[in-house]
């Protein structure tokens, strides 16, 4: 461990903390989100330094990228509601006056009044104590611990893949991942179950974005495919690939593209659940020859994992994009007023 590395790590740590603080404390919410995205990117760097390239990819794509996009679009909607109080769906209650809302977006963050000062100091004191205690607990851990690395290494050759992270995710602890897919689906169900949000404001995509999307989307699809394929050996895998796929979808949505109505019915639903469905089916099928739930026989493990991952990638991509879009498409009832003409599906 050279001094330079030390300095780099130290600097990275301090920058992370500083960025986090600025994110949380900045008066402007837009600025806060941008800072948060920057924070996410730096986190990826930290993951690389920690020898965790898989996480770095996931963090960059999901943590910084998609979360950032979600945050931005949410903020935009918050502002749309604020700005266009009058003309959006007059039947929904709009209590807030425009100037009130404007203030909300601008300076809300500073809304900690003085009378809370004492409480604030107390809180700082308490939390410092908590942090100190935690730090002490962490530092008291032995400086070397193999964790489960040996177990993973020993079983890697029968797992069907050579990337240990993928092995853990889809084989050793595949059950976690199964439930995790359910969480993702759940988030979408939850979002859809809320009543319709006000329509995202329609900015004309602009030439650059339009061009960019035409150029980038095929590229992103390619990257997603690559990540999926390579995941068995090198950093990559379903989640990373899925989020890249989602990025492509987000880009298309931003460019004003809307899928044709006929894809919004059960094809969309099917795409959303295919990952989980395949996962569950595989899990159950493995029980047929007398194995345990999710017991992948070493001979087919590689192929099965790839199958699961492919389906999962598609579902993750579509789910994340749908989360970005927000409300449930008016699928069965009314055809959406799609502006884009591109009816191609991914």
């Amino acid at each position, binding site marked *: *461990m050279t001094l330079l590395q030390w300095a780099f790590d130290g600097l990275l740590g301090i920058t992370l903390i500083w960025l986090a603080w600025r994110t949380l404390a900045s008066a402007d919410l837009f600025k806060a989100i941008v800072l948060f995205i920057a924070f996410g990117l730096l986190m990826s760097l930290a993951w690389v330094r920690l020898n965790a390239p898989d996480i770095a990819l996931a963090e960059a794509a999901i943590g910084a990228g998609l979360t950032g996009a*979600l945050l931005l679009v949410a903020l935009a909607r918050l502002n749309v509601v604020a700005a266009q109080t009058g003309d959006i769906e007059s039947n929904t209650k709009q209590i807030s006056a425009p100037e009130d809302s404007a203030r909300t977006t601008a300076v809300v963050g500073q809304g900690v009044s003085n009378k809370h000062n004492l409480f604030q100091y107390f809180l700082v004191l308490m939390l410092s104590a908590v942090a100190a205690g935690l730090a002490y607990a962490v530092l008291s851990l032995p400086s070397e611990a193999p964790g489960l690395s040996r177990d993973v290494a020993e079983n890697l050759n029968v797992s069907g893949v050579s990337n240990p*992270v993928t092995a853990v995710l889809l084989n050793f602890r595949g059950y976690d991942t199964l439930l995790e897919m359910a969480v993702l689906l759940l988030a979408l169900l939850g979002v859809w179950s809320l009543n319709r949000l006000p329509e995202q404001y329609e900015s004309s995509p602009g030439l650059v974005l339009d061009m960019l999307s035409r150029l980038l989307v095929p590229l992103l699809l390619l990257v997603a495919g690559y990540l999926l394929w390579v995941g068995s050996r090198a950093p990559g895998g379903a989640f990373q690939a899925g989020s890249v796929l989602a990025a492509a979808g987000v880009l298309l949505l931003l460019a004003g593209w809307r899928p044709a109505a006929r894809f919004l019915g059960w094809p969309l639903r099917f795409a959303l659940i295919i990952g989980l469905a395949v996962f569950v089916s595989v899990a159950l099928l493995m029980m047929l020859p007398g194995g345990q739930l999710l017991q992948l026989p070493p001979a087919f493990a590689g192929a099965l994992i790839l199958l699961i991952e492919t389906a999962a990638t598609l579902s993750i991509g579509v789910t994340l994009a749908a989360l970005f879009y927000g409300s449930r498409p008016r699928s069965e009832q009314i055809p959406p007023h799609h502006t884009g003409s591109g009816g191609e599906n991914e």
Partner: protein
Amino acid sequence: MNNAYLYALTGIVLFTLGLYALIIYSHLLRKILAINIMASGVFLQLVALSTRARPLLDAVPHAMVITGIVVAVSATALALALMLRLRDASGSAELIEESTE
């Protein structure tokens, strides 16, 4: 090797910072950001300490963190949608103290 502790401590600071912000700020978007930063802190700590297994790679925490990231983004998406709906219904993106009558 000792950068394990460095990053772990960073994680703890991030966690505490997020917790502070979660309690102190009232705007929901900020609270959501705070939760995300807390999550980052936890993940950082989880992975940083696993580097103590060097030269081997302990993949289990890595997988856990990837799971965690996906869970976090799901939760964030739900929280944001909820925030927008709340804003829609009550006109404010802050939590108003319930009067218990």
